């Protein structure tokens, strides 16, 4: 339970960083932290205390509690998707830097929501 709560705290920290920071790179870092927190949570969901790798041996005997392998497979997909988003955001941030010469959101703000 503690681990889940720590995950949620990390997630909140990431979101807070993404929302409150005024530097494009720090915003990207914030999003990345939140992403890692969610991925970590996903892996933890599959973990069993004292679990062994989910491999069935030839004798067919159960070797005690096995960890759930599905989240491990899914989290790889999720990490790759995270990589794609982060790379795209970083590329856009670089192009913005070339146009404005700064990463500071306050100086970039031409559009208003």
């Amino acid at each position, binding site marked *: 339970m503690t681990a889940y709560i720590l995950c949620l705290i990390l*997630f909140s920290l990431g*979101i807070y960083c*993404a929302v409150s920071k005024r530097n*494009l790179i720090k*915003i*990207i870092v914030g*999003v990345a932290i*939140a*992403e890692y927190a*969610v991925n970590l*949570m*996903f892996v933890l*969901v599959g973990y069993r205390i004292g679990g062994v790798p989910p491999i069935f041996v030839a004798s067919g005997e159960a070797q005690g509690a096995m960890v*759930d392998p*599905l*989240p491990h497979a*899914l989290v790889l*997909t*999720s990490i790759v*998707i995270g990589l*794609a*988003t982060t790379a*795209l*955001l970083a590329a*856009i*941030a670089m*192009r*913005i830097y070339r*146009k*404005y010469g700064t990463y500071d959101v306050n100086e*970039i*703000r*031409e*559009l208003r*929501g």
Partner: protein
Amino acid sequence: MTQTLMPLMIAVPLGGAFLCAIMGKRSRALPDAMGFLVTLLAAAGAVWSVRLVAFEGPLVYTMGGWPAPEGIVLSLDGLTALMLVTVNLVAFLVAIYARGYMERYTSKRLFYGLFLLMLAGMNGVVLTGDMFNLFVFLEIASVASYALVAFGTGKHELEAAFKYGVMGTIASLFILLGIILLYARTSTLNMADMASQLADGGGDVVPLVTGLFLAGFGLKAALVPFHAWLPDAHPSAPAPISAMLSGVLIKSLGVYALVRVLFNVLGVAVPGEAFTPLIVLGILSMMVGVVLALGQWDMKRLLAYHSISQIGYVILAIGIGTPLAVLAGLFHLFNHSIFKSLLFLDSGALEHATGTRDLRRMAGVGRKLPVTSGSTLIASMSIAGIPPFNGFWSKLLIIVAAVRAGHSWSAFWAVLASILTLASFTKVLRYGFQGGAGNRLRQLAAVPLSMKVVLVLFAVICIGGGLLLLPSLRDLFLGPAADALAGGTRQLGFVLTGGAS
């Protein structure tokens, strides 16, 4: 064999995107041809899917032959067919339009590559019957759309794309967190299996997950507390992409996914009963969107605010939950995708001809561009709810359904928002098209034929859209879609039993 249609709806655009990106350098004609051909096939497939659902019932495709609860499935029911038609019809017309419009940008092969990638993602979102698969397709469509918003690589485009990218990624994280919690509770990712396990009780995570999904999909659909990115992102994209984003992306990724999960998986929104969070979000979006739209002078920004407002109508109607209201909401969803796409394409044609998006500076173009101004007039009357255009029928149905369900206040707000919409579009027509004096615009660029044809086709659908309410057509198209939501948590049960063969 008929099930093969479902993976093809995803695979064909995906393959087309890949070929455009790698082969497009060799020949200049290939991306245009590929965009046309792939979207034509997809639109034909979508129309065929309506026929399949109406005559053979819901269908299931098991990926790789792995049976339902363990393997990934694609499922096709009435609601999916409605979304497929909406998405692929708009995509087909937009692809024709883009042929002429995108000449001004440098790289058509990248444009069509991303465009088809986004289409594949959206088709995947509406077809999939697996929660994690939903997330993956959602991200495919989202990442392609972030890149498309930045396509012009000007200052505004990049800034809007960054904002949209950050907000969209956070939304996706909320959705993923919700999916993880559901998986932890039920140990399954199959929507039908998940629904039956949650319905058997033990839904203690459901309130938390509902909140996460409302925030996540609400951000994707730009419902009001979460709408800040839309008025920047949609106007910054090239006009065909604005039409896709406002017309179908926020609906397939936002509205469709939200109502599918709330009604058919979580079961928190019970068919026939009102679901208050949706009603509140709907009314808020409706009013805030239209009030902010009133003050805009940039045509595309004005249209973007109206998208928020019109999505509010859809969400409000679905939140009321009676069969009539759900039908009206889905009908409005289809209509909005038609007239809002038309309006954005019109704004693109005007920008092409006059070089500006400011309504005050384009005054008096009405007589010089008869096709553009005529179709804008039709679409404006549609969105404002003037009979006999399609927007009138769906708004009328929403208001009637709200009154009959005893939600007179919702009906009042809907009428008020409709009047404000009319006021706002009167401004567009008065200043943008009829204003007499401003004739600084002597030299207008000609609007290419391919763009004009698309504008006329969309306008024809706007005029004829009301016919979908005729009983024979309703039973074919809107009826099965509304029934899919009315099925509640048992709706997706056909996935486990195999569906029609």
